[in-house]
């Protein structure tokens, strides 16, 4: 089973961001299976050194760390289908495709 490791870089983790991350997590769960992925959320204000090491210029940024090669997307975390395409995640079995 391919394991996916994803990191979401946000400016500050407020309620709006938490809700968007949850929507993205649900989408990943359908595409990858609940046990096959990890999402780590990095608050750029709280961890500036991590953001600098990863050269995060825009938030939100989502990085697919694993499997390699790494993939990156920026913009709206609620654009779950477009994010999945950009990060080359499998299709959502429920709606079977990309709506965005």
């Amino acid at each position, binding site marked *: 089973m391919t394991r996916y490791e994803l990191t979401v870089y946000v*400016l500050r983790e407020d309620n709006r961001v938490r809700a968007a991350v949850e929507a993205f997590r649900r989408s990943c769960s359908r595409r990858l299976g609940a046990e096959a992925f990890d999402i780590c959320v990095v608050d*750029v*204000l709280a961890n*500036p050194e991590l*953001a600098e090491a990863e*050269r*995060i*210029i*825009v*938030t*939100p*940024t*989502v*990085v697919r760390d694993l499997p390699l090669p790494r*993939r*990156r*997307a*920026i*913009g*709206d975390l*609620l*654009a779950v289908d*477009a*994010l999945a395409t*950009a990060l080359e995640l499998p299709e959502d079995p429920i709606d079977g495709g990309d709506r*965005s």
Partner: protein
Amino acid sequence: MTGPGADELGELRCQVRDLRRQLADAHARLRSIVERSADGAMVVDAHGAVVYANPAAHRLLGHADGELLGEHLGFPVTAGEVTEVEIVTSDRAHLVAEMRVVATEWDGRTAALALLRDITERHRSQAELAHRATHDALTGLPNRYLFTDRLRQALVRLQREHDSLAVVFADLDGFKPLNDRYGHPFGDLVLIEAARRLTMTLRPSDTAARLGGDEFVILCEDIHDATGVATSILARIEAAFAQPFRIRGTSVRVGISAGYAATGDPECDPEELLRRADDAMYARKARR
């Protein structure tokens, strides 16, 4: 069949040269529009690398001209037509930008054109307006609107957490005579100092607000022993006002009366709870 004559070939060559020049001119004109645009324009390839960025995009993202090329910024996505993103700057004064994404091609491959507009100022003034609508301009404390909203939310949370909450109602004693004697600007300074002293009595989870005039309220949340917590807050408030106020070189005594009402009922009406706290405050005032 004979081919075109020398004259005809010469004519065709001229036409091709003219068309090429026109094309180059059109290209240069378009490029100069994009290069001079105040909005950032970037083309990002399918792997998230920047393949083109205009000077405005470089400025907005804090890079010198040309530095963005090849940068693995990330493939831009939006759910609707437009989304807001933040630009992380080294001085931690982050910018806010509106981003539009248009699907395009670059050298025959799938790419995205991201158009970025700096809306930091607009964002700041919106945040300022929202702050003004929810806070008291004089003391900077939350106003009645924000307080009632926080109280409603706290009551909803009671459903999950089975705790209780208390509302403390306080008003200053002898404020009106001070205002009459020294004038409103002096009275304003008294209110600012009163707000500061009240705020110092709070626990981190409490919210103090100015309802208007010399009336203040405090919301005490997530408490197991509402009566105990509220009683100790009342004692702290009275202690905070024991020392005289020093305003513009004048020492004045400002008293405070406070009362509280507590509830563990999520269905409790916020206005009713405030009224009960107000009544308790008057009962204490009357006993003095």
